[in-house]
């Protein structure tokens, strides 16, 4: 079963089965890595912000750099109005990043390689952004679907397309992250399997490929977290500053 590249995505129960009504909310390996990621974030950022020295140590520098990084990202894409949502986007970015990065360690579980997790995050963002949009602009938010400067003849078609594109946001957002993580990890597993099956004679080529792929996957892990966060910022920007 270990040779199966998909077996790394299997979820299994750790500890007893917990049932609330008809729902099974048992603690699984996925839950374990969610907890580990969150704890790691909290520990690192707590240690990094504990004391404030004029010359920051490495951990403090790390936390402050990531703070400024996310802050700049939000400022550039969504403007100053997005300031109240900074904490959410920061935790979102860090959560996805840490889940991705923990998934890079061998024998770990990648939380974000599960469509249900990314989809829940994306749906939450989608609903939240829509609510924010309606609160800020009332029914004027529907103008988002009516781009300016479009001939009236084309308007019905454009509106339909805009609505579809708007509604497909959570899907594209979640599938992008999930598919990237799954594909990358599957590929690494496949190449790892090649190394074993080709042995000491032919295994060097897939091994070198695997090494390169690991580097690439670390890049992808960061990049996908970044893309996830920045797309959230862009959706938020649409809701906060109606451009159409």
């Amino acid at each position, binding site marked *: 079963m270990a040779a*199966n*590249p*998909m*077996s790394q*995505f*299997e*979820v299994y*129960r750790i500890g007893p089965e917990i049932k609330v009504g008809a*729902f*099974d*909310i*048992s*603690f*699984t390996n*996925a*839950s374990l890595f*969610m*907890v580990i*990621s*969150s704890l790691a*974030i*909290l520990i690192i*950022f*707590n240690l*990094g*912000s504990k004391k*404030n020295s*004029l010359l*920051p140590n490495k951990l*403090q520098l790390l*936390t*402050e750099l990531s*703070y*400024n990084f996310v802050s700049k990202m939000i400022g550039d894409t969504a403007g100053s109005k997005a300031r109240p949502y*900074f*904490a*959410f986007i*920061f*935790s979102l970015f*860090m*959560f996805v990043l840490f889940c991705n990065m923990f998934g890079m360690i061998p024998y770990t579980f990648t*939380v974000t*390689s*599960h*469509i*249900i*997790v990314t*989809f*829940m*995050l994306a*749906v939450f963002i989608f609903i939240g952004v829509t609510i924010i949009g309606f609160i800020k602009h009332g029914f004027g938010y529907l103008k988002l679907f009516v781009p300016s400067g479009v001939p009236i003849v084309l308007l019905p078609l454009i509106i339909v397309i805009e609505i579809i594109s708007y*509604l497909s946001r*959570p*899907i594209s957002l*979640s*599938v992008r992250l*999930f598919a990237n993580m*799954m594909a990358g990890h599957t590929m690494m597993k496949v190449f790892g399997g090649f190394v074993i099956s080709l042995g000491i004679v032919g295994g060097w080529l897939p091994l070198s490929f695997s090494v390169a792929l690991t580097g690439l996957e670390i890049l992808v892990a960061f990049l996908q977290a970044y893309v996830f966060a920045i797309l959230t910022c862009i959706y938020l920007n649409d809701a906060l500053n109606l451009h159409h």
Partner: protein
Amino acid sequence: MIKKIFFQLVFFNFLFVGKIFSAESGGMPQLNPEFWVSQIFWLTITFGILYIVLSKLILPKISSNLEQRKSQISDNIEAAEKQREVSESKLKEYDEIILKSKIEAKNIFNQAREKVIKDINKKKEILDKQINEEIDKAEDEINKLKKGAPEKITKIAIETSSELIQKLIGTEINNSSISAIVDDLSKKDRSKYYGN
């Protein structure tokens, strides 16, 4: 409603993908709904706690840390600027003092020079005066000699001529008559001998 449609859409979509995969690996564990509720539940809990702790405790701290550092740095820069200004003014003062003392030194030098020049001039004047006096005296003497010369010459002429006459003739002649003749002659030829 929309959510449900999306769920179905996604599910359908990935069933298709899953079938392709299942041909060789036995399906995608992601599409097994057995632990979906558990994952949603734990995601909500962990992400919720993460968000709350980050937004209430850690991020404000980082932000205040950054702000504090910024203000501290700007304070330090301000203090440094102030010190720089102070030192610059001090430098200016020193420059002024140096300039002043230079001017003073020049003045002193000039005064000394003037004094020396004055002294020299005074001494020169005195010397000039003395020289002039000497010259005047000498000129006076010369004039006196000049004035006295004709009389002496006449005297000599009278004596010589009386002696000459005595030796030539052997008789003594009254000096007064000779002197009358010599006077007469010298008056006549005065312009020839003395030019005036």
